[in-house]
């Protein structure tokens, strides 16, 4: 109760702060932990043509400059318009959501389809499972990933196992999507910063997705809602809601939910990450490649955290012989552990260094310590260097 109320209050100040660059608290002399200039991030579509080319569109196809919450809003809008079985609900969704993702949708699609629920996460997810079990395509919102735990039973014991236990009755809750803002935001402390994805990757039956950018979020969320018949946990890095902007196709499109994406090709080292840390990986790679002439690092965005694209990661690790996994959630039994073990199993003879894991430390997200807690550019840089020097 207190947490969620706190969440609402927090959302107000988070709104202005998300415009800060991450690593903005860098110390004065920092060479690596510099603020990221979002206008220079190579994997964001900085030009209209870059977006058109990436999506195979014609040269006059409309593209819009949107941020992450705008892209999510566009995806939800499309889904509601495309399929009248789509419902959107959660705490404070009707007025547009504390992060503005559902802005304008209740006005356009009505209170029967876009609505507030009582403040109860187990209720929201249970209700959504029931809607999906009767053939609807509910999109439930958990206000912060930090508050998903009251719904853990419904997700783990119910949503994930629904199709399996129903068996030949044919019933399932595959239309279900649970969206939740996740990850650090500069000052979210313990309950507005968490990345609980690893908890969900241990649950057969759930798909866990995390986008890194507006264009990716739009395609992945649309696919999750309209095309995927498995329950999806859709985690949105909230620090990117306003910070990440790029050109995004105006028309609807979907992206596959089981494919990793090689963002940058390379031959000497593979960096694997997903969501927000990719921006820091990209910066760290740029710094190291500038320093070591001829170095070429491959950067992979997992996109689907579970079930994940082992084939793409293994192919890369076999090619480069070195791998660094980066994520914001903590070290032990994190997603990095699964990736490192899989690489060890699938690329053993090609490995030239132990797989490195750059993660948050095994403690909690203390307010004032964030810049020392989460992986930053310097830590990623250092891990890559250690791998290359091994």
């Amino acid at each position, binding site marked *: 109760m207190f947490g969620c109320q706190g969440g609402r209050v927090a959302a107000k100040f988070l709104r202005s702060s998300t415009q800060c660059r991450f690593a903005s608290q860098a110390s004065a002399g920092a060479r690596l932990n510099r603020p990221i200039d979002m206008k220079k991030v190579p994997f964001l579509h900085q030009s209209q043509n870059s977006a058109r080319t990436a999506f195979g569109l014609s040269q006059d196809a409309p593209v819009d400059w949107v941020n992450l919450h705008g892209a999510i809003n566009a995806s939800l809008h499309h889904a509601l318009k495309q399929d009248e079985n789509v419902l959107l609900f959660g705490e404070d969704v009707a007025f547009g959501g504390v992060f503005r993702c559902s802005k304008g949708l209740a006005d356009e699609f009505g209170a029967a389809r876009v609505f507030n629920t009582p403040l109860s996460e187990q209720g929201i997810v249970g*209700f959504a499972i*029931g809607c999906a079990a009767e053939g609807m395509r509910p999109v439930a919102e958990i206000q912060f990933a930090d508050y998903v735990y009251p719904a853990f039973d419904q997700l783990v014991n119910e949503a994930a196992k629904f199709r399996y236990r129903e068996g030949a009755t044919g019933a399932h809750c595959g239309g279900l999507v649970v969206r939740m803002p996740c990850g650090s935001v500069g000052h979210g402390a313990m309950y507005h910063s968490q990345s609980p994805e690893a908890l969900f990757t241990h649950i057969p039956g759930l798909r866990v997705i995390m986008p890194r950018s507006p264009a990716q979020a739009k395609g992945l969320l649309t696919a999750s809602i309209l095309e995927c018949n498995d329950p999806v946990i859709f985690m949105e890095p909230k620090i990117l809601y306003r910070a990440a902007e790029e050109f995004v196709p105006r028309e609807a499109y979907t992206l*596959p939910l089981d494919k990793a994406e090689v963002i940058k090709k390379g031959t000497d080292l593979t960096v694997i990450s997903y969501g927000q840390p990719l921006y820091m990986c990209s910066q760290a790679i740029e710094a190291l490649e500038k320093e070591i002439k001829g170095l070429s690092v491959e950067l992979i965005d997992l996109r689907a955290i579970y079930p994940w694209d082992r084939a793409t990661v293994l192919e890369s690790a076999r090619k480069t012989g070195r791998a660094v996994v980066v994520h914001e959630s903590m070290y032990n039994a994190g997603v990095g552990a699964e990736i490192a073990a899989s690489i060890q199993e699938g690329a053993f003879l090609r490995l030239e260094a132990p797989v490195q894991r750059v993660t948050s430390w095994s403690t909690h997200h203390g307010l004032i310590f964030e810049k020392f807690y989460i992986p930053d550019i310097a830590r990623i840089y250092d891990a890559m260097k250690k791998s290359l020097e091994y």
Partner: protein
Amino acid sequence: MKCRTVLRPLAASSRNRSGVLLRRTGIRWASDTWASGPAQKAGSDSVHFPGALKSKFTSTMKFRNPTEEAAMPTYRIMDADGNVVDPSRDPQSRISDEDIIQWYRNMLTVSIMDLIMFDAQRQGRTSFYMVSAGEEGIAVGSASALSLDDVCFLQYREQGVLIQRGFTLKEMMSQLFANKDDNGKGRNMPVHYGSGKLKVHTISSPLATQIPQASGAAYALKMQRLMNPNIPPRIVACYFGEGAASEGDFHAALNIAATKSCPIVFVCRNNGFAISTASIEQYKGDGIASRGLGYGIDTVRVDGNDIFAVREVMLEAKRRALEGDCKPILVEAMSYRVSHHSTSDDSFAYRAKREVEEWKRRDNPITRLRKWMEKKGIWDEDKEKEARTSIRKEVLREFAAAEKVKKPPLRALFEDVYEEITPEARAQMQQLKELIEKYPNEYDVSQFEGGMKTLS
């Protein structure tokens, strides 16, 4: 995963016509709840706080004490001896003898199957069982008031609902023996029944999780009728015990069903015990029924041993649930769990055998209806004997048949986790196959349909 880039026109299926779905009717602005702004009008005798709109001011400080309120009465039509208490409520005028006899036979079937399966578990022929003794009337009576279009969510002690809806003994036995004809493909513990055809969702063990799901399902039914008025009006019937009502999911479910006006009837079977925990350790209020009012839900308490009362209450509950914009209803059906909690429980460790015998002898839904039928002259000792013999024979026949049927294919272990088998699971299926081929004496695959062949 079938995903593709789609750039398709969007207009086709979007509904812009005026009416139910797209209009903003029903949006309640926070300000709507204020008569005229937040300020208290001078001289007003009632509260204008948004959280409690109809509250009058008082200068008497009075704490409401629940024990000062009378307990909610229990509705009944016939007494323990099968006599109709209020002649105007005599069911005879509204229900055919055939229907009543069928309900009786359905209750008897549950009861007879219980005895046989309880013993079968004791002999180790199935792994687990849960009997319904004492609660057959709640299940059969309430289900008799539902249509086959209505959707049911069960807890686990509602075999009578399934039988009343047409679940066959063969289907029951297939589930209990987890054979290849089991709807659940042999994945669930015994008694976790489900049927797509009968619109009964498969039972899951975690208590109360089905309650908010049922609320959501009811909302879906309501929306589907808004989208397509040709769909008949339907409700969800959601069953749970008084112990499960202590779970957070019960609270979540009733609250959301009320705020979203869902056409649902919550049926609480209050049988006095949650395993060993007596209701006195479960709650301090007036049962479960008293809570319904707190959520703004129409509520009734009914004698669960009186099948006529349960049926009438359920008919009225369904009518009310579908009235106007729809709403949830709470029914608390009182009974006594005559049996042990399950085959893994010996209830005499926590309650007196004498008390149980007393209930068995004095009052239960089967003997009560039997007395009523005998008084009406539509039942007698011979009919009773014949019914018991023929039901028992049929149960044993299906029992023997189901026991012989092969188990589901091994492949079913890996299927249905996702819509399609993932590459990871496919690789593991192959690993299992190789393992069994390497150590053939360690595993008996002969009882599984298709043997090893299905593992690829």
